């Protein structure tokens, strides 16, 4: 590991000379706290050489003032009392570094979130508290010491986990920038959920017609190594230097010689429900090709139902059936990782939402997609499951599994649009049909979506503003839906032939599995957690790991594709630079005190610690400076740089002042 010393200025460790800068942040702080009084008070504190107030310390003029003050007053510590370190600490660290100081000799005190915003009604007390916070900060600042960031080399390969539309986009973008990409997909074909859809909103163009060419592009791209029917098993290492173990599940078919002709499928005597691609509607054989446009177009044997009769083997003209095939493994050296592991469709079966699972003619939106799809089990004919006849009256219920405290609180964001799309398709295919959409709020933001909603109204689709309270089955397997039209206050008993539940998205099991392997955070809704909801939407708190598509939260195709590209752009920054700067705030062990008890080792969330040859070993590049191990250390041998005991105690001691 190469270490570059960013700054080594001995004057930093001389007697502390602290400059204090109080930010008014417009009226955010200045409107509540008397900043000048705080600056005056700071000027009386030990080691403080100068103090001043800025309208906006983070502005160009504010930063220039800091740099000038460092030069003029020979400052060796800088304290800014302003907003949150989360957004502004990097700016000020860079600022003091430009003036020749080690960036870790900067101390940040938050008098906005921690003071002015929460004490808006108590101005005097807020000013007093700001003085106290600054006093504590000054005490700590005088104990700060310079730290060095580490530079680690980056392997110029990327791993993309999940080959839905987001992952494919990400892989293509990284590959086109000239880097090697391993694209791992757990299913036998790439394409994800989009491959199952019939048409796509807001243009109603055929989903597989626009996705198919992209799938082929992925397979053809020389920089992409496609690993289908494969799963990531283990990930070790850190940014730029990940070691990844991938399991390639046995297909029992030689992918190099199989042509996907389907002769084997014809001869196979075992038929089971097609749950993988057709949502359980219709059947597939024990040996099957996932779907006509699959990439790679290769057969796969489902060993859990195969009866080993050998019919496929006899039918295959290229001798591609290998019954004794076993799982194989690859070990990959990876620089950056993109997670686009997708989602599951909400399952209304366990709770029998609106009679789903009890009545044959209640289906989900995804099941309707397969029914209406020309390459689906009914060749695009929409039929009632009970009698296989086309329905005359079709109803959609919106927000099934979403916007409900007892299920999922969030809005799944794409269900309004897909219901509008499917309703239009039904009206187009069957002009005599009546289509109802029962909704609470129709949400159609983004380009051409509102126009799409308009089109649905023009096509005679009927909208009822209300969520049904009751669904019962009639004698003819039709359904009676009781719903209030809340705009007219009428309680309506609606007779329908087919009821479609517009189900939303939930975080998938495979996303959760990958999350646990990578130690990425998860939000309360189960989806992966981004580093910042606005400014770092595809980053994670782990360097070199990025998240995109619906694994990060419900979103539609255009948004997923954008995130795929965003992940690629964020990830390739490391590949282009060939190096990564890791956190300077890491844990330090005092080998004289450490007894190698190992208590700290399992505490580390990042696997940075290990006991080797009776000694504690710290991989600095893995350490994120969280401090968990230092707290657990029974002998005090572990000290977290920048938050050492003496630094924190200096701060704590100065919480209270005692007048003599």
């Amino acid at each position: 590991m190469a270490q570059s010393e960013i700054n080594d200025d001995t004057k930093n460790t001389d007697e502390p000379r602290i400059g204090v800068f109080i930010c008014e942040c417009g009226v955010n702080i200045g409107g509540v706290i008397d900043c000048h009084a705080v600056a005056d008070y700071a000027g009386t504190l030990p080691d403080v050489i100068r103090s001043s107030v800025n309208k906006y310390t983070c502005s160009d003029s504010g930063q220039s003032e800091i740099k000038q003050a460092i030069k003029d007053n020979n400052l060796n510590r800088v304290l800014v009392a302003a907003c949150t370190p989360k957004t502004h600490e990097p700016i000020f660290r860079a600022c003091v570094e430009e003036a020749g100081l080690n960036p870790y000799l900067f101390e940040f005190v938050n008098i906005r979130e921690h003071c002015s915003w929460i004490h808006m009604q108590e101005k005097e007390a807020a000013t007093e508290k700001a003085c106290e916070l600054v006093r504590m900060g000054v005490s700590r600042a005088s104990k700060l010491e310079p730290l060095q960031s580490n530079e680690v080399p980056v392997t110029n390969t990327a791993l993309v986990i999940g080959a839905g539309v987001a992952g494919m986009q990400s892989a293509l973008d990284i590959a086109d920038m000239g880097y090697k990409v391993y694209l791992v997909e757990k299913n036998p074909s790439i394409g994800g959920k989009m491959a199952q859809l019939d048409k796509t909103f807001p243009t109603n163009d055929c989903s597989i017609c626009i996705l198919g060419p992209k799938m082929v592009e992925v397979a053809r791209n020389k920089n992409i190594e496609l690993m289908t029917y494969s799963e990531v098993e283990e990930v070790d290492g850190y940014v730029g230097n990940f070691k990844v173990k991938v399991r390639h599940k046995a297909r029992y078919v030689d992918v190099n010689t199989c042509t996907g002709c389907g002769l084997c499928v014809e001869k196979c005597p075992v038929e089971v429900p097609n749950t993988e691609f057709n949502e359980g509607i219709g059947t597939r054989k024990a040996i099957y090709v996932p779907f006509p446009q699959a990439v790679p177009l290769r057969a796969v044997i489902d060993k859990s139902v195969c009866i080993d009769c050998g019919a496929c083997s006899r039918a295959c003209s290229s001798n591609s059936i290998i019954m004794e095939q076993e799982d194989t493994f690859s070990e990959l050296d990876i620089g950056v990782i993109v997670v686009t592991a997708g989602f599951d469709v909400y399952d209304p079966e366990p709770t029998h939402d609106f009679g789903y699972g009890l009545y044959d003619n209640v289906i989900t939106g995804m099941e309707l997609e397969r029914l209406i799809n020309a390459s689906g089990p009914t060749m695009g004919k929409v039929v009632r499951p009970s009698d296989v006849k086309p329905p005359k009256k079709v109803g959609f219920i919106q927000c099934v599994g979403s916007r409900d405290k007892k299920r999922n609180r969030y809005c799944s964001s794409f269900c309004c649009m897909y219901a509008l799309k499917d309703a239009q398709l039904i009206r187009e295919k069957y002009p005599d049909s009546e289509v109802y959409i029962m909704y609470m709020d129709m949400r159609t933001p983004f380009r051409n979506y509102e126009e799409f909603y308009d089109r649905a109204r023009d096509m005679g689709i009927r909208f009822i503003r209300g969520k049904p309270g009751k669904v019962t089955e009639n004698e003819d397997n039709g359904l009676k839906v009781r719903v209030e039209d809340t705009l007219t206050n009428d309680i309506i008993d609606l007779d329908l032939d087919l009821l479609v539940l517009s189900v939303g998205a939930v975080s998938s099991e495979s996303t959760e599995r990958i999350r646990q392997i990578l130690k990425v955070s998860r939000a309360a809704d189960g989806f992966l957690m981004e580093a910042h909801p606005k400014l770092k939407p595809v980053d994670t708190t782990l360097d070199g790991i990025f998240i995109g598509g619906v694994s990060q939260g419900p979103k539609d195709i255009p948004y997923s594709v954008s995130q795929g590209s965003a992940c690629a752009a964020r990830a390739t920054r490391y590949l282009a630079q060939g190096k990564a700067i890791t956190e300077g705030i890491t844990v330090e062990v005092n080998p004289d005190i450490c007894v190698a008890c190992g208590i700290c080792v399992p505490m580390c969330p990042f696997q940075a610690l290990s006991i080797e040859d009776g000694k504690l070993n710290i991989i600095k590049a893995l350490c994120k400076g969280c401090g968990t191990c230092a707290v657990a250390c029974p002998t005090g041998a572990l000290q977290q740089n920048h938050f050492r005991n003496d630094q924190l105690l200096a701060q704590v001691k100065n919480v209270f002042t005692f007048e003599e």
Partner: protein
Amino acid sequence: MDEMTGENININEQLKEASTNALRCMQCGVCSSSCPSGRHTSLNIRKLVKIAGRSSDILKSDELWMCTTCYNCQERCPRGIDIVDTILKIRSISAYHNIILPEHRAVCQMLLKYGHAVPINDDYKIKRTEMGLEELPETVHKYTDSLNEVKELLTSCGFERFTEDNTDENKTMENTA
């Protein structure tokens, strides 16, 4: 009447406090389409949730008393609003301020008179004697001493006020009814 003005302010505050969780309502209509009472009466529970806590007008609405407290709506509410519990709280406030329906008063009078909300009627008395039973069953109704004790208990709680209609609200309500 001065006291009543004070009471009114009190009512609004009490109603507001009782129905804070109804503020979460997004008017989806699951409650109203789940309501068995609403099928046969003028009750629209969604509208009650909408006006709950807004003004004391809710106390004047007959619909406040039409809920059968079956809890269908509360069980299904996607916003997790304690609809029925809120209705019960509002009813308590209403009763506290002596704003109840004439039918409720009749029941209160019965309770004070016989110790039963629904006392035995003449038909049953005749039937009982025909079957060789005593006219009255073994309840407080039969024993004057016990009945007096019940009456004393109720009177000491100020129960008598429910039998008298002396509020403006109720007069208005009866006039419009």
